[in-house]
């Protein structure tokens, strides 16, 4: 005999079980019409397999599961499908949902079916599949699809199988009677489950108010070689709660938000075990169940074996109801059951009890009084919550705090409301708070989803606009190019770079946008991959698209950039050279003149004349060049000018200095004035040259900045790269071993290419 532990709280409501255990289980009559809701279980609703007008046989599958957690539904009797529409279902909301309505033909003809024979020879997965095909869902009240629980041994180690026979709610005796009369079916079911889950031991938890059931079970257990213990627990509500029973039998608590299988325990209701037995040994799907029909408003309370889909009115009539006395019709027990307002609502797989209560039996709750925080609810709470605090939070709509006080660990057993001296409908407050929180979360999810979609759309629209713009620009550029080429042929002047430059900028922006998008897409994809999201494929496609777009943009940019740099025109080049030649000549002449002047030699005048001529020539060449360039790109003249200007500036500076020192050295007064004049002139020219240089330099820097390149930095980088090349060359000559050399050579190649690249870029801007 296993030890019995305890759980916190609990209550002892009047049992009211005796009334319905006096008579044996009897068969309920088959009604004319059976209404089968598509959702009788937790999970996704089933999908009808039949059409209106179809003839179905007893046990024929009429709806199949649509998802992993779902269950199939079978025709409880033979007949015709007369309707598939919304009918009121047994649910606290009183709402309607999709149902299949079968008109019984009265023949009750079975579809061909047979048991699996020696199920131990079958593969476990096949066995589980058979149970799934039999539409079995937990019959204790929650209705969790049984096959899902049986699959648990695949990824969990199941040590303990607990059979829940506690049936702690008042009035209900369906499991009690089942065990009394069909203990062998229960045992057979346990053996099948044990075969699938392979637990090390099996515990049957049963309350001590069912001595007959305990005897019956003990009797059949003698014939099994399984390690099964019957654990008799004291009668206390809610010992039949899954988590409470686990605590009672094993002293282990199921961690909040987890399932019992996480701690190696699987719980099954006795009704479910019997259903599994019938499904495996006889091939009968779940089409009927035992239901307790009790309450003071029926004259003969008893347990009925009724077909799923039987309207409550048929069941009540079978127990001789007194309609005038009936004031409340409760489906389930008095603690957790739901009231229904319509006796045409059908019996479903989870309906274990139907209480037809009189006004006297279940009077309306006394009016609610103020909570005096007496703490009785806390003493009764089996989940060790603070019900009165939860009540305050729910009432004040402080759902965050309610959650923090573990509202979602509440099992809605009703113990708190039962003991509340102020008759506060505590459970309804918790249900209200829970559904509010759930709705809020759902809305939040939906809002987040909408936001995502909205942002994605915005991004897409932007991208489309950018692409459109880029295309437009490209077209315009092409047209302008053609136009300018035409003009160039006629006037032998270049116009291409002008259009190329702004176009490159456009393309650059497009490329940057594409890159950002690519990055974003990559990030989204990574995140999604990390989360293992469903839309991975979608995202991947988006990513690839973005990538290709980015590549395209880059390519376009690169080609335009190269064409831009090559855009210089031969004509202007020639002119440039001519100007340079002229300048060199001039410079030479100037040098000579200066020399002569410095030394005070003869022939100064002659030299001066030469210089003047040359100067004129140089100026002319320069002017011609500048003229050519002015109509061409503004980049080209700068390119040439900047170096020349720099040189000129330095020359001027030297000249100026020399002239100044000459003045200082000169003794002749007349010479001094002459030299002074000269110095003044030189100064002016120097200033002019400097100004020109600065202007040119500024233009350069600006252009480089527009291209996103710091000219200064570029220069430094280029210089460093060059230095690196030199250094590499030097170390190469010093290197001794081949290995070292090859390494250095490799480095050197890299450095050279880098330096080259940098120089190229630099030259492009200078």
């Amino acid at each position, binding site marked *: 005999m296993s030890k019995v532990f305890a759980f916190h709280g609990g209550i002892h409501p009047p049992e009211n079980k005796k009334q319905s255990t006096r008579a044996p289980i009897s068969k309920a009559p088959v009604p004319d019409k059976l209404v089968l809701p598509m959702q009788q279980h937790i999970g996704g609703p089933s999908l009808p397999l039949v059409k209106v007008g179809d003839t179905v046989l007893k046990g024929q599958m009429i709806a199949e599961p649509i998802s992993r957690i779902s269950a199939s539904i079978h025709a409880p009797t033979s007949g015709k499908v007369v309707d598939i529409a919304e009918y009121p279902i047994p649910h606290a*909301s*009183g*709402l309607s949902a999709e149902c299949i309505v079968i008109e019984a033909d009265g023949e009750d003809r079975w579809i061909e079916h047979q048991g699996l024979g020696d199920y131990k020879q079958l593969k476990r997965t096949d066995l589980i599949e058979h149970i799934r095909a039999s539409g079995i869902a937990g019959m204790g009240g929650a209705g969790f699809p049984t096959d899902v629980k049986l699959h648990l041994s695949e990824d969990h180690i199941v040590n303990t199988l607990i059979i829940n026979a506690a049936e702690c709610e008042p009035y209900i005796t369906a499991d009690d009677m089942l065990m009394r009369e069909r203990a062998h079916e229960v045992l057979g079911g346990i053996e099948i489950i044990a075969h699938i889950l392979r637990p090390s031991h099996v515990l049957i938890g049963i309350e001590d108010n069912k001595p007959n059931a305990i005897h019956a079970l003990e009797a059949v257990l003698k014939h099994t070689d399984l390690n099964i213990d019957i654990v008799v627990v004291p009668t206390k509500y809610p010992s039949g709660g899954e988590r409470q029973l686990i605590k009672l039998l094993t002293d282990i608590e199921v961690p909040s938000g987890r399932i019992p299988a996480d701690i190696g325990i699987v719980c099954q209701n006795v009704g479910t075990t019997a259903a599994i037995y019938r499904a495996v040994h006889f091939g009968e799907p779940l089409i009927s169940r035992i239901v307790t029909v009790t309450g003071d408003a029926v004259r003969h309370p008893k347990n009925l074996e009724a077909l799923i889909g039987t309207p409550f009115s048929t069941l009540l009539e079978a127990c001789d109801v007194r309609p005038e006395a009936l004031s409340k019709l409760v489906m389930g027990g008095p603690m957790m059951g739901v009231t229904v307002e319509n006796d045409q609502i059908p019996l479903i797989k989870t309906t274990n009890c139907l209480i037809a209560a009189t006004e006297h039996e279940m009077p309306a709750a006394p*009016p609610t009084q103020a909570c005096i925080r007496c703490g009785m609810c806390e003493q009764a709470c089996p989940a060790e919550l603070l019900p009165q605090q939860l009540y305050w939070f729910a009432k004040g709509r402080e759902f965050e705090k309610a959650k923090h006080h573990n509202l979602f660990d509440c099992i809605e057993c009703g113990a708190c409301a039962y003991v509340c001296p102020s008759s506060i409908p505590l459970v309804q407050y918790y249900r209200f708070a829970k*559904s509010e929180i759930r709705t809020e979360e*759902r809305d939040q999810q939906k809002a987040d989803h909408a936001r995502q979609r909205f942002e994605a759309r915005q991004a897409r629209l932007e991208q489309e606009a950018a692409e459109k713009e880029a295309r437009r620009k490209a077209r315009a550029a092409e047209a302008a190019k053609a136009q300018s080429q035409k003009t160039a042929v006629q006037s032998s002047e270049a116009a291409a770079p002008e259009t190329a430059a702004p176009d490159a900028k456009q393309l650059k922006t497009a490329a940057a946008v594409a890159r950002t998008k690519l990055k974003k897409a990559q990030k989204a994809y990574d995140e999604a991959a990390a989360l293992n999201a469903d839309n991975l494929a979608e995202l991947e496609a988006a990513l690839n698209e973005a990538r290709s777009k980015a590549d395209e943009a880059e390519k376009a940019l690169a080609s335009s950039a190269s064409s831009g740099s090559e855009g210089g025109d031969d004509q202007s080049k020639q002119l440039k050279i001519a100007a340079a030649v002229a300048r060199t000549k001039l410079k030479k002449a100037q040098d000579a003149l200066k020399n002569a002047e410095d030394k005070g030699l003869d022939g100064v005048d002659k030299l001066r004349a030469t210089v003047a001529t040359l100067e004129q020539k140089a100026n002319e060449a320069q002017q011609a060049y500048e003229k050519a360039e002015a109509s061409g790109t503004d980049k080209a003249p700068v390119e040439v000018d900047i170096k020349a200007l720099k040189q000129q500036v330095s020359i001027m500076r030297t000249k100026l200095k020399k002239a100044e020192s000459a003045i200082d050295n000169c003794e002749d007064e007349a010479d001094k004035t002459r030299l002074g004049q000269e110095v003044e002139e030189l100064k002016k020219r120097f200033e002019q040259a400097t100004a020109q240089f600065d202007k040119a330099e500024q233009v350069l820097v600006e252009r480089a900045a527009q291209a996103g390149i710091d000219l200064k930095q570029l220069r430094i980088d280029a210089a460093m790269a060059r230095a690196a090349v030199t250094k590499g060359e030097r170390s190469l000559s010093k290197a001794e071993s081949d290995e070292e050399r090859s390494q250095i050579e490799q480095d050197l190649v890299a450095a050279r290419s880098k330096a080259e690249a940098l120089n190229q870029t630099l030259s492009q801007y200078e």
Partner: protein
Amino acid sequence: MSTVLTAIIVLFLLAAVFGIVLGYASVRFKVEGNPIVDQIDAILPQTQCGQCGYPGCRPYAEAIAGGDAINKCPPGGQSTIDALADLLDVEAVPLDAEHGEEKPRSVAYIREDECIGCTKCIQACPVDAILGAAKQMHTVITSECTGCDLCVEPCPVDCIDMIPIETTPNTWKWPEPPSPMQLIATDRGRGLSASEAH
């Protein structure tokens, strides 16, 4: 005199110390970005309907952060206003009727026989929830529809209806228990509510 001086020095020192502390804190605990906009945006219902007068929820969130009124969001309704009031610590005001009234959540539905395939609604949909192509029938992906009704206006044949989302047993919410006062007024009985009980 020296007392005064001491006092002044002490005050200066204190000012300096606290200044350093505050300066350090402002650097060390600097809040990146403008999270208030994100927080406001998170509260808004993201229908992107533009009823507030801004082109989407985010711009409205930015406007609220900039001091705009919080009661311009009809889809969010009073609960959104309350949440915003709570976040921004301002008074919750009733919804500004100028921007519309709070309606039950709905989804767009295209009467497909009448659709001429003009794609106007597709362009209007802020969340890309309408599927279709030119000259092809369009349909609404109901799970993506935010119920903003921006697609209703552009439809040249008026074939789009806004259908309120129906409560199913799965989305049904337990109502709040009536307050004790009402209970006594309606004389006993712990009905879910007077209207629903029948």
